[in-house]
């Protein structure tokens, strides 16, 4: 849920008043109206609205307006807009789901604008590669991202645990997680646990599959995870839960796909939450205690399972009314230093070298920690997998549902695992 802040309310009212005062026609002729839609959190929304103001000031003939909702509401709303043929001109997308939208034709290729309105000279090759599908560029990366375990440093210290002293943030195992989580549970008040329970955390499981030498999806668009992997993974977390390191199953079941405000580390119910690195800034903004960054845990074999991927893209939609103005805005969003400075690292590490260098002196503590994190994981990550098949989104939902049953001990793990594999393959074949 996003809040209507006073600032945004004023902006909207002012924009409405201005529009009615000027009269629709004259306004529309001189100014290109561009809508930018993203999913956010309070911190991201604040920064993005500020950036839009900067852009509008610098481009009197383009009027960008921002629209934002929480992640949970974003895709349903976008789908409604696709159906109505009134998608915003510029939308935000993640690496997981974008391929489905490209396949269905909702997103336009950018190649004809490269060299005109879009300048790629400063952008990292890997970021351009990540936005390229079937040889065409569809998306500009607005930040690199990786899985990150965020931990409450104060709670860890209360249990006598600090990074470097029996705790390697860049190479801890599930056994370490258990040991540390139990220690933190014991050192903190009742009802506070050392770690979230990741039984139903699809991102963590997808790491685990790669750590075990598998891949999430096979080339023939079937599910690559096996019953053995699922059962082993669920047992790891059951073990941590039973040892008192994580909250009881039903408590965790209520937090599957929760918004940031309900995450364990944010509410203080747990000391460790497993998310994406770009969310570190947002989480720190909601917490007094300092937040530390660690990789997702690994098995003793230490096969890399996480990878660095674009956190988000901005894309041009099929329904754009003025592609030139829209791509001008998109270009500024990734290249214009005044804007990238305000955006900071909130969406991930920028793909533009210059933007990155300009940021370094301005970083807050949480942002500096993000940069340090990316240095720390270098060489410890896996290769970026090919784009996910269509239906991947539903497979993830299916996983969360089945794993919730595991948390609530509704059936045996073996049955649940087989059930997930069957359902996932069915979903993938249906699309």
């Amino acid at each position, binding site marked *: 849920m996003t809040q209507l802040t006073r600032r945004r309310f004023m902006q909207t009212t002012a924009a409405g008043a201005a529009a009615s005062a000027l009269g629709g026609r004259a306004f529309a002729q001189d100014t290109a109206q561009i809508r930018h839609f993203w999913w956010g959190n309070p911190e991201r929304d604040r920064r993005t609205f500020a950036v839009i103001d900067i852009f509008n000031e610098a481009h009197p003939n383009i009027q960008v307006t921002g629209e934002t909702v929480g992640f949970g509401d974003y895709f349903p709303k976008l*789908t409604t807009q696709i159906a109505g043929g009134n998608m915003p001109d510029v939308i935000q997308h993640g690496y997981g789901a974008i391929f489905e939208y490209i396949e*269905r034709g909702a997103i336009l290729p950018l190649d004809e604008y490269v060299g005109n309105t879009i300048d790629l000279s400063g952008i990292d090759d890997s970021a351009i590669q990540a936005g390229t599908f079937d040889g065409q560029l569809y998306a500009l990366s607005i930040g690199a991202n990786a899985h990150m375990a965020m931990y409450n440093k104060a709670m860890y210290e209360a249990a006598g645990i600090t990074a470097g002293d029996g705790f390697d943030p860049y190479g801890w195992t599930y056994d370490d997680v258990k040991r540390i989580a139990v220690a933190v549970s014991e050192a903190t008040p009742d009802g506070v646990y050392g770690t979230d329970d990741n039984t139903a955390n699809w991102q963590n499981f997808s790491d685990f599959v790669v750590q075990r030498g598998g891949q999430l999806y096979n080339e023939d668009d079937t599910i690559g995870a096996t019953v053995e992997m699922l059962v082993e993974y669920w047992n790891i977390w059951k073990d941590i839960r039973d040892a008192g390191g994580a909250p009881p199953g039903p408590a965790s079941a209520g937090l599957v796909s929760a918004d940031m405000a309900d995450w364990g580390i944010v509410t203080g119910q747990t000391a460790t939450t497993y998310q994406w690195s770009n969310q570190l800034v947002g989480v720190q903004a909601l917490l007094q205690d300092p937040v530390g960054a660690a990789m997702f845990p690994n098995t003793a074999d230490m096969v890399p399972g996480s990878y660095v991927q674009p956190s988000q893209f901005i894309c041009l939609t*099929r329904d754009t009314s003025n592609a030139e103005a829209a791509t001008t805005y998109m270009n500024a969003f990734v290249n214009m230093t005044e804007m990238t400075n305000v955006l900071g690292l909130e969406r991930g590490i920028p793909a533009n070298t210059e933007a990155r260098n300009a940021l370094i002196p301005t970083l807050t503590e949480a942002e500096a920690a993000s940069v340090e994190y990316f240095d720390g994981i270098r060489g410890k990550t896996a290769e970026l997998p090919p784009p996910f098949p269509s239906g991947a989104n539903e497979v993830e939902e299916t996983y969360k549902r089945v794993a919730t049953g595991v948390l609530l001990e509704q059936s045996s793990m073996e049955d649940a695992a087989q059930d997930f594999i069957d359902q996932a393959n069915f979903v993938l074949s249906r699309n």
Partner: protein
Amino acid sequence: MQKFLRKSGPAYLFLTPWFLGFFCLALGPILASLYLSFTKYDIINPPVWQGLANYEFMFCCDRRFKQAFSVTFAFVFLSVPLKLAFALGVAMVLDKGIRAIGWYRALFYLPSILGGSIAVAILWRQLFDYNGVVNSFLRIFGIEGEYWLSDPNYSLYTIVLLAIWQFGSPMLIFLAGLRAIPQDLYEAAEIDAAGKWRQFFSITIPMLAPVIFFNLVLQMIEAFKSFTHAFVISGGNGAPLDSLLFITLYLYQEAFSYFRMGYASALAWVLLLIIAVFTAVAFWTSKYWVHYESDR
């Protein structure tokens, strides 16, 4: 014609706003969804005709539809009778002629005004959260509460409770119905030494039957269509374990999360048929238990 106009003309005149809305806004989408229910339609590409495939799949192979079906029925059969009984009970208490009855009426009606609002559903989530008001209250008495919302054994009951809490509109209608029962019937019964229960079953219920029937049909349709509460409380996907997967929620998810507009349309039409059948059954049985003043 002239007779018809004189008799029903004003009624249709008053219905004009509804007719306008129906023909200008609702009819088109309704017909479109009927067509789409026979197609595969992913919103972006044009729909592809595939006959009855959606309906066949729904009844042969779709586990989540079966789940949605049973959740919806459990909700309707639990919430409607309980809500009506509760509304009738409160109406009878208010009918006794308490002081400041206007206030009470307004007060009891308030939850229904808040009706389908998101805020109420969020409030409900706070109340029944593990560390919420309900469990804190129970803890005063040393009772350890349950995970009301994340345990599929309880989650549906919290929504049933929410539905019952919004008993205001049937209550108002019951209240009007109670006022219309002639007092002399009760006086006569009292002279014949009939007890309170006897009076209730032999006078109140039969005299109220048309009102009960009206409320029953209305609340049943409402309950089948219920969406917002389950959507907000379950986080939009029927969680935990699909225990809050109402048909409305399922069709929303199919349409807007998974791009299956055609299948979602088919689900919507099946829901419509279910409602139609139940309403028809209610009307058919009403012959045997509802008697109107004019019939006598």
